[in-house]
Every structure is written in C-alpha cells, then in structure tokens.
C-alpha cells in the first residue's frame, strides 16, 4: 500500500472523527445561517440569502484551516508524536502533504454540505456554474488560511495555540464581514477590512453570487498573504530547529 495515500486517508479520518470539527465547522455555520436568515434579518431577499450562505461557508472553511490544522500540529508536537514520526521512513514532506490533502478534502466536504443544507433552508438559486465557481474559489482561497494554520502550529503550547487562534479566527470573521455585511459596519472597520485577507476571501464569493468575477485586488491580497504566511512559517520553523 502506498504510504502517502494511507497517510492522507488517516488524516481525513482523523478530522472527521474530531467532534470539534463537526461542531464548529458544520453545525455552527449552518445554525448561524438559519438564525441570520430566518429568525433575524427576515425578508431581506434572495440576494442576502446567497450572500450570507457564502459568508458562513467561508467562515467554516477558514476555521478548519486555522484551528483544526494549527491546533493539531501543536498537539502532535507536544505529545511527542511528531518526534516519533521522524523515526519512520515517511518523510516530513509526505507527512505535510498528507495533512494538506486531508484538509482540502475536508474543505470540499464542508462546502458541499453547507451549500446543500443552506440552499434547502432558503431555497437559494444559483446556476450550476455559480455553485461550482464559488466552491472552487472558497477551496483555493483557503490556502492563505492553511498557511496561517501552520503558523499557529508552531506555537509551544496547545492552550496558547487555541487561545490565539480563536482570537484571530473571530477577528478575521468580524472584520472580514462574515457575520454582518460590510455595508452596515462603521467606516473605519470598512477601511481596515480592505487589508484583511478574510474580507477578500468573502468578497470573491460575494461578487460571484451577484454574477461578477472576483476582483484582481481580492486575488492579489490573498496571494500576498499566502506568501507572507508561508515564508514566515518556514523561517520560524528553521529558527526553532536550530535551538534543539
């Protein structure tokens, strides 16, 4: 059996069997979606329903990219599992690759579930290509957040990592307009949002449900953050290895 494939399968199983993942990445976003479209903000129309569906999906995927990945990395290191893995012939690269594949599969799954449930709840009607493109956008747009997850994963303690990543996650969600539309936010938040990756992550999808394409700014900001996070993550990791 191919070790990389086995490892990918193991990573996918591990995320699925994690009750926190099911709660935070599936249950909560769907509950939010229901509440903010059917209990509060009723009668805002189809556009809001589609818009907010994208918001909660981005929220879900962003969360699993930062939290599930980041905290798991810290856990594996502090428990000595990463050290043990270094004794096996599976390379660090293959191990990391499997993690990324696992995350991506999970993101695809979350997107499908939330899109399906959401569209049933409010009868959201988008064209097939809109659904597919939005899904693709959210999947690819999650990369900077995965890189952020690996940064969180470099922290020393699980408690710090989960505390810090929670704050980052919530901050990104609010400033990125994933809970409330940007238009009703104060002016200064709107101007901060222009610099926040989560806003551009959401924007791309919001544009698409309105029949537009993601702007070049959306794409470049996300790529910019991806590069910054990856470089930082590699740099810090190198520095930590020297100490040991």
């Amino acid at each position, binding site marked *: *059996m*191919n*070790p990389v494939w*086995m*490892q990918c399968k*193991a990573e996918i*199983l*591990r995320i699925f*069997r*994690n009750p926190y993942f099911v709660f935070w990445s599936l249950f909560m976003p769907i509950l939010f979606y229901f509440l903010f479209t059917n209990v509060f903000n009723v009668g805002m129309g189809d556009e809001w329903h589609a818009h907010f569906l994208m918001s909660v999906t981005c929220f879900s995927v962003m969360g699993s990219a930062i939290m599930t990945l980041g905290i798991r990395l810290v*856990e*594996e290191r502090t*428990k*000595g*599992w990463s*050290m*043990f893995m*270094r*004794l*096996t*012939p*599976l*390379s660090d690269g293959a191990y990391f690759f499997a993690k990324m594949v696992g995350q991506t599969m999970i993101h695809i799954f979350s997107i499908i579930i939330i899109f399906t449930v959401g569209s049933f709840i409010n009868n959201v009607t988008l064209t097939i290509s809109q659904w597919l493109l939005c899904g693709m956008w959210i999947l690819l747009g999650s990369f900077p957040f995965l890189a952020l997850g690996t940064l969180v994963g470099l922290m020393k303690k699980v408690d710090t990592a989960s505390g810090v990543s929670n704050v980052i996650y919530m901050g990104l969600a609010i400033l990125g307009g994933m809970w409330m539309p940007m238009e009703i936010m104060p002016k200064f938040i709107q101007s901060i949002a222009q610099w926040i990756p989560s806003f551009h992550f959401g924007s791309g999808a919001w544009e698409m449900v309105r029949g537009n394409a993601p702007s070049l700014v959306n794409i470049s900001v996300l790529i910019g953050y991806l590069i910054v996070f990856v470089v930082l993550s590699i740099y810090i990791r190198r520095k930590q290895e020297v100490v*040991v």
Partner: protein
Amino acid sequence: MEIVISLNQITKQFKKQTAVNNISTVIHKGELVAILGPNGAGKSTTLLMMLGLIEPTNGEITLMGDHPKHKRNRERIGAMLQEVSMIDALTVMEVIQLFRSYYPQPMAFEQLISITGLQEEDLKKRADKLSGGQKRRLSFALALAGDPEIIFFDEPTVGMDTSARRNFWRTVEEMNKKGKTVIFTTHYLQEADDVAKRIILFNQGKIIADGAPIDIKRKLTASSVSFAANDFISLEMLATIAYVMKVVEKDGRVFLETDHTDEVLEEIFARKIKVKDINIHHGRLDEAFEQLTRRGGEFVESSLDAV
C-alpha cells in the same frame, strides 16, 4: 562481528547540564544490550542520539555506517520511546496498518496483532483511548511494524503487567535469536541481568562499566572489610593479604575489598594487625546498585576498576 552502532567521544550538553559526557562504545550486529542506570544518568539522551532525534554536542555517531538520520536507516530501525504518545482518532488496527504501509517489507499484520496481545474488542478501540499499559503494547507492535534490524526500547516495560512483560521479553528474545540487534534501557539490574547479554552501566552521563551481566554483577556485589584507620597500618602491607582486591582509605576508614571476607579477617588477626571498629559490608544486587550510583559513592565506584 559487524559493527552496527558506533559512538565516538559523544557529549551532549543541554544549556548548563551535561547529560552525556564523552562516551565511546560500539554495538555489534545481533547483540542484546541493556543500558542500565538511575534517573538522569543519560540513558534516554544516548538512545535519542543513536536514533538521530537529537544531535550530539560533540563526537560522532554512526548507525549502520551512516548518519543516524539517513533514510536507509529509517527503514531498518524500530523504536519505543520513553514517552509513548498515540495518534488520536484512529483505531488500533488502523494505526498498525498505517505503520505497515510506511515500510518496504512490513511484518505480517496478524503477527503484529498477536504481539500487541490485545483482546478482540480492544483492537477496535481508538489508540489514544487505550490504557497506559495497552498503549505500550501497541507501541511495541509499532516499533516492529517494519520488521527492523535494530530495535531500540526506552524503559519498555514500565506500566506493563506481568503477563505483558513476559510476552514482551519473549518476543524480544525471539527477535534477537533471528539476528536482530536489540538495545533497551532500564533502571533494574534484575531485568538487565535476566534478558541482556551485555550491560552498559551509566551514571551521571558516563559509562562506568560495560560487560557481560555476570561480570557487572560481580562488580556490584563485591564485599568489603573496613576498620578505623590509624597511623600504624600500612596500606601496601594490607594489599598483600590474600583475596584482597583493592585497598581504599576513605573518611577515616580503611576498606579492603574482597569476595572472601572470612579469610581476610582471619589473616588480619593472624598478622596481629591492630584494627578497631571492624565492619563487614556485603553488597547485594540492588543495594550495591544504589551504592554504586549514589552521588559521591566514589569508594564503590572506584572499586570497580579493581575487579
């Protein structure tokens, strides 16, 4: 015999603490070696350096001719570390299959299952939900997943019950009979003596004895006759007494080390040597081990050189 591990003047310094202090030794193919020593002696640090998980501050280690971290080595070694950690969310069977997939020639699944000695219902449990001892059994199986040529165990039997322990050592002996090299650490002389064919005794980061269990035991069990020192007694003269292996003066007392305390006493009286406050010490295994490794136990420690 082919050398599989060689340590050449290895030192490991952690900030101010010298965990391992300039040790050199070689281990041959097919050996069954115990690294024996008290807490903090540097056993784990040495093992981790052999595995390439930590780098020595000084000196050179080779594992099967290469740097320990070499990819080829990864396929040929297996290890159980002191802190056993288990991957979460996978069942015992899934973890075993996963580990088998890493190696070119894994051990048979059924064989690994029987090595864990776990019950049918435990095999379906999540690995991280097992009890401490069960985790160690599983980690034993994981260490063997690749059918390794060299196997390292850091305090393997801690937390195992009697039957798990018996099962463990039986499997280890079988593996060793098949020509596999086995290196394990332990605090217990008894365990080292029962299983190993060679004991490397560690204390305070140094190798203080290295040899067959029977020799090590003899060194650890040497008895002595001691009495209050005085100016009329010449240490040189005492050394000529039959059966006296070593004479040491310490804390105002003279120690004659010997395997035959009765004969030595007889001779002391026959020569009419004026001695006062005579004491006879009989080292017993564990007691001697404790003495040996006690901080500042120079007498017994230096006595080792004499044997």
